[in-house]
Structure formats: structure tokens, C-alpha cells
């Protein structure tokens, strides 16, 4: 059973387009993180959100944590080929020692 579901699983868009990736769960998380992973590398942390309703911006990337802290979204404006990669969300519960990772969204931005 996957604690965090991401959608879409695969996304291929043209350079300059906007996109949104969703991360959903029925569980409540004390914090949620987004990572980007490129082939042959480990995931790299992009952002951590901890407050329900929180919105964080990182250049062209906007991250939102749901009010109930069960879901999150990542919006990319004017996608660039350098945004290509596997995007992973990861949630931390109050009871565990680990982050639970989502299934991942593979993004390809075509020049």
C-alpha cells in the first residue's frame, strides 16, 4: 500500500508550458518535502513545507501544502529543459522515523 500517490506518473510537455504535479494521501503529515532526481543521481531536496496552507516559491516553482496537511502540489511556470527529471514528494508522520516517498512523477520538457 502506497501512502502517497503522485499524479500524473509521466508528463511530457513543450518548453514554456506550465504544469502541476499532485501528491495526495489519506494520512496527515507533520511535514512534506519535494525532491528532484536526475538519472544516476540521488534525489535532491527542493523544499520543505510544514504548515497547512503554506505556499513556498522557488524561482519558477510554487509548492503548496494542503490545509489539512494531507496533500501537496508543485506548479512549474514556463518549464525549461533543465526541469526534466523525476519529482518525488515525501511526507513525515508524527509516529515514524522516516519520510514516506510518493511514487514519483517523471517530467520531460522538450526544447
Amino acid at each position: 500500500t502506497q501512502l502517497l500517490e503522485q499524479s500524473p506518473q509521466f508528463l511530457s510537455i513543450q518548453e514554456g508550458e506550465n504544469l502541476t504535479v499532485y501528491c495526495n494521501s489519506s494520512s496527515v503529515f507533520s511535514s512534506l518535502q519535494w525532491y528532484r532526481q536526475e538519472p544516476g543521481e540521488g534525489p535532491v531536496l527542493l523544499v520543505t513545507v510544514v504548515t497547512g496552507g503554506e505556499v513556498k516559491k522557488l524561482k519558477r516553482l510554487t509548492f503548496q501544502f494542503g490545509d489539512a496537511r494531507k496533500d501537496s502540489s508543485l506548479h512549474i511556470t514556463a518549464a525549461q529543459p533543465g526541469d526534466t527529471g523525476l519529482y518525488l514528494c515525501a511526507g513525515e508522520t508524527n509516529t515514524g522515523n522516516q519520510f514516506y516517498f510518493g511514487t514519483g512523477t517523471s517530467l520531460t520538457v522538450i526544447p
Partner: protein
Amino acid sequence: GAGVSQSPSNKVTEKGKDVELRCDPISGHTALYWYRQSLGQGLEFLIYFQGNSAPDKSGLPSDRFSAERTGGSVSTLTIQRTQQEDSAVYLCASTRNYGYTFGSGTRLTVV
């Protein structure tokens, strides 16, 4: 060191052989995690070390898997009698507060 270092980067082994994977975390990071990532999948938690506390081994898939962390620094993940389903990328991460820093992983192929 500057980052999390894992070795080897690639390992091909015959079914039934034992393998050892090494992780050298960032100096000063007290927590160390092992995750497994199968092709096209999210990350599966294996084991967690925090300081001198007993490790959380709840994610280890079978008793063929074990891990040690010596002196609160370097960790070794050992897989005995490898099976083909053990083929995956094994990722190590360390952290002090928020957010994991991942190594580049060891790609294990069991033939």
C-alpha cells in the same frame, strides 16, 4: 565530506552471492537512512540509524538484509544470498535536521 558518498556505484553479482554496500555520510549528520529504489518506483525505506539509539529495521524486506553503522559514521548494508528481486538502486541519505542529503546510490544487478 562535502556530500554523502556511496560505493561501489555499480555492482553486478551472481545470484546467491553476498554483497556489501558502503555509505559515508556527511560529517556531523547524526541520522542515516538506507532506501531502495526499483526501476520506475518511488523509494522504499529499509533502515534508519540515529546516534547511538537502536536502529529502526522495520523496512528490511527479509533476514538476508542487515546493516551496521560503525562509530556513528560509515554504514554498511549487507545482502546475503542475493536474489534477482534484490536488483535495484540502493540509496543512502543522512540528515541533521530537515531534509535528506542523498548519495548517488549503488546500482545492484543480480544475474
